[in-house]
């Protein structure tokens, strides 16, 4: 629906397309109007989610009174225009274009991965090009293997979709066009980075030039069964389709015309708990464990329905429900709502993409929430949005997007939030209590403690002055902060009084759904059953616990996404064992299927009473989303009382930051073959000096009771004394890491 390129003046216009009178509004292109009304105009290079490329000239139309042919993808329709989309001359033109596309195109459809879903194949048939009539002297064009994707230049038709996606959507900016007439080709300018986000570029390739290396030459496209689902890794819940043959997932695709999928979603699909049978003995042990248990501890890798089952068990059996990440998020959002007066947050990804100014705080964005990063990148590319990135560590991957990096001391988020809000709300009329809280702040002291210069914030607020469309992205550093609730309240002022689109990015998994469905407790008591968390009795979807559970691609259910939607997931792979619902049934909480809980999700938290099988899952011809349903924002009681800012407890010396590498989120992504990451403690040279560590040295340290035995690596592109500590490779115990993401590093060297 590319709103981004339409200055929607909203003036009503009437156009005639092929004799059909159509009412529309000014600002839309002819192609957009045609697609909206199901009028077919053939295209080769048009991709809805990026700006028109105009490379193929297939979309030409004739407009009465205008000489020549017009590109319908770029031309905005004017009032009273009479448009013809097809006649002899246009057909001839398109046929000639197809003839030129077929010049020297290798006749190897038999082995090409795209065969069966190839735009070139389809259009060649459509326009009746039966033979290759022209030729050119061919050149040596070797196939290139770029890691996640492979590029075959001789198949490439130079539509530039991949380049646009790489720049406008994913923002890795790796792909460029090398111009040179017939010798033009796509080049990867950053092959050493091996971006998994290039999978998104491969997805939009209309021919077999750019394909996933792991999928290449493994099967034919038409033999795969397509199972629509949602990605369970980060909180994004992006649309995805598993493509399955013989009970094996061959690849993951998406509705690439309208949506995006990061590398983890695209390549992290083979984490199923396979070969499980119903183990009656283990099951009876599980029932016993549940009967003796006082608490249930679970990770965020569960569906809404499973969360509902646990909540129902809590109501009937009185268990304590523990889920640290979700609990922190729940508390944060409760505090947030007490200022805004509404549940949830105001923003959405679409609004971020339309913003002119975006502030990101408390998240290593590229690693935590790729879909948010993509939308910020869109705003940056389409609207030249100013992006202020506030974090203790600079991120090289965001350097192309971020216009202002504001570094603050780890631990000082509360002060930073207060500084930011008081600067941005200077000229805004506020209720007395709030105003006096902001006026009473000791700006100088806060600024000194947090290391955020007043002039930096001034620069930020100056850049806001002439603009509208502000977004604030809040990340998971803040949720586990000791002063999280105060921070939530302060930042919520921006939504209420400065009209910011705020997005509080949920922690990985379905933490948002859990936080809305379950009444969570803070600490476990007594005998504990763990679900994807190590405990006295462990249910595990990794297959290493006391009873096996289905992984997310083996069960049906819904997920709550950071875009505030409830979206359905379907079963991609079979599962032969017991599920959580079987345990609940044995304990007397009876529903036949897990999805029977879908309509029972709490309506007082914004869910709707819709049966699972009635949830839609598609995009219409112009890209409007019909996936599941959007959550409603519910009224909440307002309590705008603020406490005084606490003394900032800074970290001295070496600090580690719990942060997974891009494309890794949990033990489930760690299990995937295609996503290969080596887990090191990565720090700067400065960090090495501060800790007296050598590159390649093995050290042992403990965080939240989880023992890490890691090799230290120096990354010369990093600065400062904070090192990145991945947690995804720790199996189920990764879910135990629940405290503030920064922590002091107390280590000992291995073997001493």
């Amino acid at each position, binding site marked *: 629906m590319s709103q981004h390129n339409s200055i929607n003046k909203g003036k009503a216009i009437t156009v005639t397309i092929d004799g059909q009178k159509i009412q529309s509004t000014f600002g839309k292109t002819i192609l957009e109007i045609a697609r909206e009304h199901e009028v077919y105009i053939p295209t080769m290079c048009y991709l809805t989610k990026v700006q028109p490329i105009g490379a193929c000239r297939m979309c030409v139309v004739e407009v009465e009174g205008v000489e020549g042919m017009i590109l319908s993808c770029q031309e905005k329709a004017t009032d009273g225009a009479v448009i013809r989309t097809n006649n002899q001359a246009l057909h001839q033109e398109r046929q000639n274009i197809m003839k030129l596309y077929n010049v020297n195109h290798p006749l190897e459809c*038999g082995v090409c991965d795209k065969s069966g879903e190839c735009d070139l194949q389809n259009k060649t048939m459509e326009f009746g090009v039966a033979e290759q009539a022209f030729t050119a002297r061919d050149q040596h064009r070797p196939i290139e293997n770029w890691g996640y994707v*492979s590029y075959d230049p001789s198949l490439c038709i130079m539509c530039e979709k991949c380049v646009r996606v790489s720049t406008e959507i994913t923002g890795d900016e790796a792909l460029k066009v090398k111009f040179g007439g017939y010798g033009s080709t796509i080049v990867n300018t950053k092959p050493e980075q091996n971006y998994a986000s290039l999978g998104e570029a491969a997805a939009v390739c209309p021919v077999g030039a750019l394909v996933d290396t792991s999928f290449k030459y*493994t099967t034919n496209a038409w033999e795969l069964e397509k199972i629509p689902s949602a990605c369970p890794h980060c909180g994004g819940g992006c649309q995805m389709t598993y493509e399955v043959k013989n009970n094996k997932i061959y690849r993951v695709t998406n509705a690439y015309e309208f949506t995006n999928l990061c590398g983890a979603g695209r390549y992290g699909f083979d984490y199923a708990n396979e070969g499980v049978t119903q183990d009656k003995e283990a099951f009876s042990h599980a029932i016993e464990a549940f009967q003796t248990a006082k608490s249930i501890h679970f990770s965020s890798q569960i569906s809404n329905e499973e969360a509902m089952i646990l909540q129902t068990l809590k109501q009937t059996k009185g268990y304590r429900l523990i889920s640290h990440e979700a609990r922190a998020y729940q508390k944060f959002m409760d505090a947030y709502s007490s200022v805004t007066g509404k549940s949830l947050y105001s923003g959405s990804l679409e609004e971020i993409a339309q913003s002119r100014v975006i502030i990101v705080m408390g998240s290593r964005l590229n690693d935590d929430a790729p879909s948010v990063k993509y939308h910020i990148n869109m705003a940056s590319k389409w609207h030249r949005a100013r992006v202020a990135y506030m974090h203790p560590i600079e991120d090289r991957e965001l350097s192309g997007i971020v216009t202002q990096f504001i570094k603050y001391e780890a631990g000082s988020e509360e002060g930073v939030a207060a500084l930011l809000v008081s600067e941005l709300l200077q000229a805004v009329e506020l209720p007395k209590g709030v105003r006096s809280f902001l006026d009473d702040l000791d700006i100088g002291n806060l600024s000194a403690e947090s290391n955020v210069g007043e002039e930096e914030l001034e620069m930020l607020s100056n850049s806001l002055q002439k603009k509208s469309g502000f977004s604030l992205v809040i990340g998971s550093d803040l949720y586990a902060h000791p002063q999280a609730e105060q921070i939530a309240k302060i930042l919520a002022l921006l939504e209420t009084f400065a009209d910011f689109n705020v997005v509080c990015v949920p922690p990985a998994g379905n933490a948002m759904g859990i936080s809305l469905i379950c009444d969570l407790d803070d600490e476990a008591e007594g005998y504990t059953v763990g679900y994807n968390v190590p405990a006295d009795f462990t249910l595990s979807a990794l297959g290493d616990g006391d009873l096996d559970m289905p992984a997310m691609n083996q069960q049906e259910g819904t997920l709550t996404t950071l875009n505030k939607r409830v979206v359905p997931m379907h079963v991609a792979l079979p599962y032969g064992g017991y599920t959580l619902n079987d345990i609940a049934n044995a304990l007397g909480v009876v529903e036949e299927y897990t999805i029977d809980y879908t309509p029972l999700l709490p309506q007082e938290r914004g869910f709707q009473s819709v049966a699972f099988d009635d949830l839609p899952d598609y995009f219409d011809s112009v890209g409007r989303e019909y996936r599941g349903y959007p959550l409603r924002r519910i009224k909440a009681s307002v309590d705008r009382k603020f406490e005084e800012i606490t003394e900032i407890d800074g970290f001295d010396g070496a600090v580690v930051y719990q942060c997974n590498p891009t494309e890794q989120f949990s033990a489930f992504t760690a299990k995937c073959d295609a996503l290969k990451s080596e887990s090191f403690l990565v720090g700067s040279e400065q960090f090495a000096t501060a800790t007296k560590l050598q590159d390649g040295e093995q050290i042992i340290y403990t965080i939240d009771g989880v023992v890490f035995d890691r090799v230290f690596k120096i990354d010369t592109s990093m600065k400062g004394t904070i090192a990145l500590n991945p947690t995804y490779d720790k199996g189920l115990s990764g879910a135990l890491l629940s405290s503030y993401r920064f922590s002091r590093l107390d280590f000992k060297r291995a073997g001493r």
Partner: protein
Amino acid sequence: MGLEQFKNRNVGTQNYKTLDVGVSPQTGMERFKQVAKRTVKGELFVGLGVVMKAMVKALFADDMHTVKYPFEKMPISPRYRAIHDMLRLLESGHYRCIGCGLCEKICISNCITMDTRYDENQRKEVSEYTINFGRCIFCGYCAEVCPELAIVHGQRYETASEQRASFSIFEDMLSPVDQLNLQQEYQGFGAVSPNADENIKQTPLAY
């Protein structure tokens, strides 16, 4: 010979020849006479003589009609659809199969299974290819659809084996690489038409 003869369904008017089989005996006396006549005529020795002649020929003149199966086999029609053969390229010795999967797709009894992968030379490679001969109905569609004439029906019509797998492994169906000179171009179902040369057009890549 035209097809008209076959299309004529009117049996009564066709030129059947009736053999002269004489008149069969009707009464008991006639039957007795026939038996007595045959007994004294010595026709028995005519038959024995024929056998003797054939025996002498077989033993001393090396002229025997019996085919000593399984040591000897009759030649069969090139169009006969027996156990499949996978052919190789004569120049390189590499197998012809490009792994397009059409045979797997067209197989009406779903007996062909194949797996392919991206090999280190960045080409498509067949990593697994099996035909379940317990299900194969030898319809020949696979050979017909194969764009490379890689899978053809061979001449091995004896489908008795201790294990079905004895036939169905890709390597067993491939022509042995040391006997490439014996590989015969298949003339049967799915083969290149006799006038293929006339239909070939010059590709536009010639310059």
